[in-house]
């Protein structure tokens, strides 16, 4: 029992991989593989709950830390741990994985490979959230890419080759600079250990490196980090891979892509950029805020301009993640003040909320896509009487995505806007245009799917959402509602971490 409790995070991290390897040995029977994958991905979730309830909110620094020798020659070690910022992300990941598995029950081709890749993906994503070592962070960062590439390229829809290639090239392009900057930090500081680096690298302000003043080198390294993470978030104008990748990916792939992978970028900002580059972040906060506001505005506008339901939801992700970036920018500028704490609370909560609502929306798009084999909004219409339960669920989830007060999204958007208003008044005010169009595109989608004259084609050919699908969406809906009504169960943890960290 102690062995389990002492290495809880490692268990969470590697159970999916082990499960994936065992999966390869199982006989090729569809239902066996599905249930096995569902069960295997539920174990980390249960263990995460154990971590959650044993987590001490008031304790500064990281908890459940584990450290082991890894690359001694490089001064890099296997160092993992959680704090109030990463734990919600771990929870989000381990929660969404079983749901994504459940959503994947409808996949019929090459189930074994599909589930194998998904389980590997989970380890990659969890590793990023858990790593307390830069090199380890990078390794997991890259590990996550590969399964996703294959998931899009193999199980995607018509234009999948283009989309998957764009996805992987874009992200790899960002990673190049990140890798170089990480190596630079490692060489200069003599360690990759994050808690040590927070001290050493952040306080390194004088002297020269490679013939250049330290400040210049740090500014360059800062931008290398920012661009890598900005592509992943994605921040406007690095966002065009996202609509393609989301649109072409299989349903569960989109759920995970929107629900977790985008958070990796934002998490990179929080975990690495802000603590490692406080000065640079402050200097360039205005730029970041401007990009965040542009993401909010253009994300919403572009979403409004779509007739492809899935692409509309994909653009809504850009819109929502813009708020995360805006919050981070505001916090970078006001670090150490109450405004910064509020903005960061909002940003982290928005990450969590967007994980719920975007995954939910993509899943619902998938549900209707499986039944009608089209994503074109103009092909539907008036489906509400045919599928009343689905309609209700869709309206609820869409309202969560829209940020209706009473559901989670509102709380986080309110906090971000509250944190950003005093510092970036103009950007905040302009982002209201985006908030307005959020309403516009959500209503457009609802109207074109549910309302309007019934497209007679679907009468009798559109089964209602089934129990398995309800089981996927129900936890997301419940969480959205709970966070909207009583956010402090989650926010208290985030808030304390933010206050102690920054």
């Amino acid at each position: 029992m102690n062995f389990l409790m002492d290495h809880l995070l490692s268990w969470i991290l590697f159970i999916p991989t082990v499960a994936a390897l065992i999966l390869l040995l199982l006989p090729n029977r569809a239902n066996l593989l599905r249930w096995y994958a569902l069960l295997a991905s539920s174990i980390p979730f249960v263990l995460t709950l154990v971590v959650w309830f044993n987590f001490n909110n008031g304790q500064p620094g990281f908890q459940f830390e584990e450290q082991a020798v890894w690359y001694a020659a490089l001064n890099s070690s296997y160092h993992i741990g959680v704090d109030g910022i990463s734990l919600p992300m771990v929870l989000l990941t381990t929660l969404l994985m079983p749901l994504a598995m459940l959503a994947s029950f409808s996949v019929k081709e090459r189930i074994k490979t599909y589930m194998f890749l998904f389980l590997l993906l989970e380890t990659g994503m969890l590793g990023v959230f858990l790593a307390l070592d830069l090199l380890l962070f990078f390794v997991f960062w890259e590990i996550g890419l590969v399964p996703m590439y294959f998931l899009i390229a193999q199980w995607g829809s018509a234009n999948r080759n283009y989309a998957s290639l764009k996805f992987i090239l874009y992200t790899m392009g960002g990673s190049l600079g990140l890798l170089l900057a990480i190596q630079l930090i490692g060489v200069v500081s003599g360690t990759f250990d994050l808690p040590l680096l927070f001290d050493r690298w952040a306080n390194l302000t004088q002297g020269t490196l490679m013939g250049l003043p330290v400040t210049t080198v740090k500014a360059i390294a800062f931008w290398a980090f920012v661009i890598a993470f900005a592509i992943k978030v994605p921040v406007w104008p690095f966002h065009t891979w996202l609509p393609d990748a989301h649109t072409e990916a299989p349903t569960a792939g989109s759920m995970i892509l929107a629900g977790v992978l985008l958070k990796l970028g934002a998490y990179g900002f929080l975990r690495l950029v802000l603590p490692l580059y406080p000065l640079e972040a402050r200097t360039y906060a205005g730029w970041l805020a401007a990009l965040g506001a542009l993401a909010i505005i253009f994300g919403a506008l572009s979403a409004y301009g779509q007739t492809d339901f899935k692409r509309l939801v994909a653009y809504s992700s850009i819109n929502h993640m813009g708020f995360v970036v805006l919050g981070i920018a505001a916090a970078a500028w006001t670090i150490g003040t109450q405004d910064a704490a509020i903005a960061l609370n909002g940003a982290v909560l928005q990450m969590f909320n967007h994980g719920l609502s975007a995954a939910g929306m993509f899943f619902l798009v998938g549900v209707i896509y499986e039944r009608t084999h089209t994503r074109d909004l103009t092909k539907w219409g008036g489906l509400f009487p045919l599928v009343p339960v689905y309609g209700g669920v869709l309206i609820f989830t869409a309202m969560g995505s829209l940020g209706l007060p009473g559901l989670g999204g509102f709380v986080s958007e309110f906090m971000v806007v509250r944190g950003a208003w005093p510092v970036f008044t103009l950007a905040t005010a302009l982002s209201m245009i985006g908030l307005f169009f959020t309403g516009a595109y959500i209503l457009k989608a609802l109207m074109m799917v549910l309302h309007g004259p019934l497209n007679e084609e679907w009468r009798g050919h559109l089964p209602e959402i089934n129990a398995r699908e309800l089981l996927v969406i129900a936890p997301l809906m419940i969480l959205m509602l709970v966070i909207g009504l009583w956010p402090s169960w989650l926010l208290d943890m985030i808030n304390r971490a933010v206050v102690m960290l920054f």
Partner: protein
Amino acid sequence: MTIQTLLWLLPLPPLLAFALIILVTNRWKALSHTLAIGAAALSWLGSMFICWTVFRLDGLAEHPIGSTIQWLPTGADSWLSIGTRIDPLAAVTLFFVAWTVLFIFIYSVGYHNFGQPQGDHDRAGLPPEGATLKGKGHHRVPSIEPMYSRFFAFISLFAFAMYTLVVSDNLLTLYIGWEIMGLCSYLLIGFWYGKKSARDAAVKAFLTTRVGDVFMLLGLVGLYKAAGTLSYAGIFGNEEMLHTLATTGSGILGLSQAGLFGLLLFIGTVGKSAQFPLHVWLPDAMEGPTPVSAMIHAATMVSAGVYLSIRIFPLVSQSETALLVMSIIGAFTALFAATIALAQNDIKRVLAYSTISQLGYMIAALGVGAYVAAAFHLVTHAFFKALLFLGSGSVIHGMEHGVLHTGEHVDPQDMLNMGGLRVKMPITFWTFLIGGFALSGFPLVTAGFWSKDEILSGAFAGGHWVVFATLAVSALLTAFYTMRQITLTFLGQPRTKAAAHAHETPLTMTLPLMVLSFFAITAGWVGIPKAFPVLGGLINPWFEEFVGSMLPAHGEAAEAGHSLVPLFTSLVVALGGLYLGWLVYSKVKAGAKDPFARALPGLHRVLQNKYYIDEFYQRAFIRPARWVAEEFSYRIIDRGLIDGILHGIAGGGLGLGRFTRDQVDLPVWNHFVEWLMARVPALGRVLKGVQTGRVQQYMVIAIAIAVVVGVLFVYFFVLA
């Protein structure tokens, strides 16, 4: 149970009813409406208990009852608290909300034809079209609404949001209730989503109010930053805070912080209470079922906008500019909407414009500083306007009955198709008459007279001549179009067969009418000014003292000497308008055009088309916005520019790769390797002789080489 606990519990029964109807009972219509009405009744009971208790308390404004909890952590050891509270303003609002909500719930049962058979061809998403009764030949009767349960679920959610808004003690929970009401309004306007007009109206309503809401959100966060709290007590009840806000510049347009945030919040009101220029959604919202129009778009939700403005009045009043903006928008809207109402033929649209106009009245009252008068009119208006809407619903219902009965194809909402209904629908007629007179401000007996009179005297006493004149003119117009409506609908002879066969509606519909008409008369008596000739002092002007105590600087316009000019004006415009309306419209014959259209066709057309504002918005905002979204943001920026650059880079990479392959790899390397490959077999042929296949020969060679190497090793390394 203490009042504190009760306040928290007050919004919950409707919420529970909503959840239960949606999740469990949606198949059973009777159970659903029982749940909804039961929940509304519970909340009503709680509200009445609270009102009964607090109405008799002294100093409630100074010591409001309530409690808070910590809700959002905001940094080290600081929390954003939310809570409930009841103070005089909340109490009077709660009073009218509880009454109107409960009776509109009851009314809905009849309105949606409960107890009638299923329709022949009714579909979810379209209004019921009637059922054929078998056995009595070909007799058609109204049929029950197909989505009956869903309707009760939605209005229950709405009631929850409204109660939340009223009992909350801070702007944040107010905003939460505010937005949920917006959602309900969207869902209920689009309740018959099969109709394109309803669908479009729903989206229009949501988006137009959202324009106001995003500004309001900015106001909220700005105020939160500046004041460090969002609670009423912390901002509006805190003189020091108000003073700080009033004297700190905001850096925007030369406004003080109080002015800026007040105005931003006020834009929220403009959207929600349908003030110019965001008024366009309310008339279209009449596409929803009539109980919805009555509750959401007359009595409660649109009133919530004014309620917010009254709430933030202490803040707004710190800035002259903000007050001026309010009075201009309010007075202009009051007049503007009244003129449009003159030319509408749809019975509900007239009421919709009159709602806009009356809300403008209240805003104008606030703008001139007549705080109590605004709150007073809010209460009286809620009662009589809910009454009017329910009355109009009853009329439409009766007409629909006639239409079904006769099979005549006429619009049951067009007033020109009515006439003479007083005989067929006496209860509806008398109650509608009471409501109409209250709206027109019929002197002395109706509630509307007292509240309107107070607003006029407030404007007069404050020296706001322009506002006073504008409001007086719009009061005249109000009386005129109200009488036009009453005359066209109820008086004279039936102009169509359907009108002749109209039928009085069931008790579930007429009972609410009677109850509300009681309040449409008596609600005014609590606010008869002391200085009023003869009547003043007969009844204690309780309202004035109760709500007036909310303002830190007590004693306002109405106290400053009651002049007879506004009183006289009120009398003249109300009676004059009513008389003129009767005069012009009492002789309209079947099939005849509106006398107004005959006299002034040009003006009539402009008014009938609402000054072409919808068309203007369509051209100036909606189409450009669509272009920006579809063309600029998506096609030009994303697809064109950004992806263009990316594809350019990818193309460049591809070109470079092709060059190295065609020009370097193929000729240079491939050629060399091929030459090399050709040489290898020849070499092999030469060397194959060495391999004899005899193990012993190999060993001899191996030993020989070992001996040679050993000798050399010894010679060079050991011996040297």
